[in-house]
């Protein structure tokens, strides 16, 4: 690096050695941060005794016991009673009986997971739809006090969720929205829509107004031009915003634990409550965690470009 490089490469291109060292350090870091996640998965396919053995086991016989325990509730029975039952149907039945238990019924995991799906997708759809409309409005028309309004709305996100949860708890109790999916959808929509408007306004500002104006001269109404010209151009921005809203709603815990307890409870407050006989059933917890994390992992990997764009874009604009 002592003299000006005269080769075809740019002078700022790092040397191969620098690259190799950088690569090794980054890959090491990445592998270390993956250990907890790998451990979640490994624990989910361990038997309860294997999961709490010392030293921690890396080699073990995989079993579906964690998943069986996650999906079912079980009762302890005497061996004689189990002997008297008809032959076991299915893997889970066999595993459960080998522990001197019988399956009593399904657990609450899938209903809670379903609630998470409904609430996360419902609120994302609403937040992005409302957000796109409002962002277009703020971007193209002169709205009185628009900037102050937007900033104030965004700043309410600085409040600790618990602080807002107090009046919302009271309000929902009044209107019968406590522990309902609708209540949670509205709440997450409201939390997300401020960010959605603000991100999407940035994306829509980048689409030249001349496009719509040309379409309108050709006889389109403004609504039509919005639908046919602006929306297709804003797809990337809408996708990036949707991922953000979805991740927030999927992962949210504070509101969920305070405002839902039964029929509308989502997975995050449910998973920590999974217990077996004599304490936390870690393989079952790990199984529940694995299933819960998979959708987000898939999203992150498939949509990483939009995601990266959204995060950095959001940061740079703020």
């Amino acid at each position, binding site marked *: 690096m002592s003299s000006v490089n005269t080769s075809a490469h740019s002078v700022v291109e790092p040397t191969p050695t620098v690259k190799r060292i950088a690569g090794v350090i980054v890959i090491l870091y990445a592998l270390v941060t993956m250990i*907890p996640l790998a451990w979640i998965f490994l624990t989910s396919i361990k038997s309860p005794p294997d999961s709490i053995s010392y030293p921690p086991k890396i080699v073990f016989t995989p079993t579906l016991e964690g998943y069986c325990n996650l999906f079912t509730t079980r009762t302890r029975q005497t061996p004689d009673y189990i002997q008297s039952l008809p032959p076991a149907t299915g893997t889970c039945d066999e595993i459960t009986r080998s522990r001197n238990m019988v399956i009593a019924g399904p657990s609450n995991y899938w209903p809670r997971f379903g609630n998470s799906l409904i609430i996360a997708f419902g609120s994302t759809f609403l937040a992005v739809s409302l957000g796109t409309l409002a962002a277009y409005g703020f971007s193209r*028309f002169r709205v009185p006090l628009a900037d102050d309004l937007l900033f104030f709305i965004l700043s309410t996100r600085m409040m600790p969720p618990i602080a807002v949860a107090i009046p919302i708890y009271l309000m929902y109790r009044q209107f019968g929205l406590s522990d309902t999916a609708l209540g949670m959808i509205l709440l997450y929509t409201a939390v997300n829509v401020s960010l959605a408007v603000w991100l999407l306004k940035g994306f829509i500002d980048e689409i030249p107004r001349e496009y719509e104006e040309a379409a309108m001269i050709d006889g*389109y109404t403004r609504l039509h031009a919005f639908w046919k010209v602006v929306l297709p151009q804003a797809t990337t921005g809408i996708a990036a915003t949707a991922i953000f809203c979805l991740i927030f709603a999927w992962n949210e815990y504070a509101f969920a634990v305070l405002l839902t307890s039964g029929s509308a409870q989502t997975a995050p407050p449910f998973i920590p409550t999974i217990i077996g006989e004599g304490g936390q059933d870690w393989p079952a917890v790990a199984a529940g965690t694995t299933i819960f994390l998979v959708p987000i992992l898939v999203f992150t990997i498939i949509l990483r470009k939009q995601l990266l764009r959204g995060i950095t874009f959001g940061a740079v604009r703020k």
Partner: protein
Amino acid sequence: MTDAPSTIAERSAEMLARSTPTTIAARVRGLSDRAIAWLFITPTIALLLAINIFPLIWAVYLSFTNFRANRPNAEVVGVGLRNYQRVLNDPDIWIAMQTTAHFVFWTILFQTVIGFALAYLIDRKFRGHAFWTTVILIPMMLSPAVVGNFWRFLYQPQIGLFNYIVSFFSGIPPSSFEMLGSVTLAPWAIIVVDTWMWTPYVMLICLAGLRSIPDYIYEAAEVDRASAWRQFWSITVPMALPFIMLAVLFRGIENFKMFDMVMLLTGGGPGSTTEVASITLKREAFESWLTGRSSAFAIILFVAVFGLANIYVKALNKVKQR
């Protein structure tokens, strides 16, 4: 982000737009622009008023009363500023604020140093850097509550993987320390998890900062024979500083109101050694049911974050203008 029209289509569209009178809306069929503006914006505003602004105003009102949510039929009496006085004079609350400050300070320090270093290394553009960047990002996408809950297992004294790895490298017996049960270690246990989870976020913003530095500046430095060390401190760091400061701001705000991860890892314990502000707030509001008092505390927290963030943004703008 300039609107400079580049393609022929855009240019002709612009010319058309200029040549027509300003009252396009009046000539076309359908709703007027004004009506559409209202139609598009009103639903969002209505929702925000109902679920964002109204509860906020209600919380302000409650903070001046003795209301308790578990006694809805009791008479509500205005108590003036007494709730605020009590909160500000409560030593427990100041301890919670110190705990929060400790948590925010160390998480930001670790995340900024590690995050910036990673961004710098990734910006060396070694083979496969895009793939590994995605891998590094994964922890920040996951639910802090669900993953925090599992970290309790990793932190188990005898059987936990964390203790095992620490003892493997240090020789300390894995059952001799409890990350979550010890008064001295518990604050660090939550800092470790938060750093694990959120360093990628800081890394990403720093990376955006590094990539915004134009190559010609480095080329000019090479021509002037500036050393790599000199280039790093005189070009890279100052030019990425606004981005680093932004990352610090976002993490600061988020960690100031941290709730879910800490709640599941320690629940504020042992004793109240990891009781950050949000957990105190939850205890006062939903366990002691001191609704009025906890609303006052919530407002104080909000004003504090808002005030600090505004001062910080002013400083940030000064750095940007340099």
